[in-house]
């Protein structure tokens, strides 16, 4: 990720239509499942909040914990990692490695005092476009309840 990932704060301002604060979300998606799922959601014209920023990775195993940490450092209100269901990895076992790594990342965030609700991990397949859209909506709602992330240096 380059420096340009800095969250542009206008994104997190009030949504014109709903007049509701829209949290910024960094979503790290596996190319073979959840990214395709997002694609499906898009082509099926399913609505989901536009303040989600998607980073496509070849496999959830590529979702380096540093991506998650960098997301919080740069002020995203929430970070999510989505990968193929266990057993369905395009590379046979990448998501099994991801599972441990993400579990430890959750623990690290907890140890650092970042609310667990700000980091979301889920298995989403390529056919689950509606589920993808629902997940983003649900995560957004959850973050709206929490309010803006005040930053790691508050």
């Amino acid at each position, binding site marked *: 990720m380059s420096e340009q990932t800095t969250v542009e704060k206008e994104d997190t301002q009030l949504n014109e239509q709903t007049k509701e604060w829209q949290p910024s979300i960094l979503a790290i998606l596996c190319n073979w499942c959840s990214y395709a799922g997002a694609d499906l959601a898009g082509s099926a014209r399913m609505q989901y909040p536009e303040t989600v920023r998607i980073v496509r990775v070849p496999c959830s195993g590529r979702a380096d*914990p540093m991506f998650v940490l960098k997301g919080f450092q740069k002020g995203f209100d929430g970070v999510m990692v989505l990968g193929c269901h266990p057993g369905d990895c395009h590379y046979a076992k990448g998501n*099994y490695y991801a599972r441990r790594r993400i*579990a430890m990342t959750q*623990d690290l965030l907890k140890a*650092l*005092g970042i609310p667990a609700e700000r980091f979301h991990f889920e298995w989403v397949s390529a056919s689950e476009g509606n589920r993808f859209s629902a997940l983003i909506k649900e995560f957004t709602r959850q973050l709206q309840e929490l309010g803006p992330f005040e930053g790691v*240096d508050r």
Partner: protein
Amino acid sequence: MIQDTIRQEAKKALESGEVRMVIGWGAGSVPFKTTPVFVDNPQDTDKLIWNPACTNNLAVYLTKLARDGKVGIVAKPCDVRSIVTLIREKQVKRENVFIIGVGCGGVVDATSLQNGDVKLREITSLEWDGGDLLVTTETTKTKLSAAAVLREQCKECDDRTPSVSDVSIGEAVVRASDLKIEIPGLSEDRQKYWAEQFSRCIRCYACRQVCPACYCETCFCDRIEPKWTAKKATTDEAWMFHATRAMHLVGRCISCGECERVCPVGIPAVELARELNAIAKERYGFEAGDPQADKPLLGNYQENDVDPAHHSE
């Protein structure tokens, strides 16, 4: 005496040609400190010492010195855990290390001696006397309780004899039981706590450099592209550095506490990795310093591993 045996074993290993060098502790510039020494001549083995101030984890030198050829290393049980990790992660070959393991009941934190009646400049020697530290000056002998002087991580350590060694020396005495690592302020608001801690970080990287588990040739924070963390000493950049370092130490950190000892601004850097490792032990049955574990924690998986997914439908 343990110190004599260390010297004899080092001498034997050097004379026989088994090792080209022995890494150990030598007398420091002041009696309450020690310093790493690299002995390559059997005549010089009397430079090696053993006392309660032998705190450095010498395994940090192995990646450089044991790359080609065999070296000896004097190691406490925690240092041995570091060596085990380095071997497991293929940074050092087992056949390139001759481990002179020393039983240990904890080492002292020199700065904690400054309190009370003892003046650092007057100290002439430190030695254990059962559960107490006997501090000798030219005129006085003072006993300090282990609880007051032990290096923080030694307080909860239950690893008293080296798990792997080529020669094992000395029996460990448990200095005091039921000691707990105390980190004031940590349990309250953690986000605020760590922001405060990291706001002090001067980015000297002493924690990283002193750490045997931080063996990367180029640390992520020294990379220019991608620039994971900027060099500036601001809280968010320091947060990124320490948080990532903690993540990188999961399954590697053996809680020797060197990073916390050397930090000039008192950041308890070891704490994050220590907590994560405790979780890893419970959840995956993995311990960083365990010679039985053949694969790194995050370079391995079980089909029935805990599922961190939220399972929201």
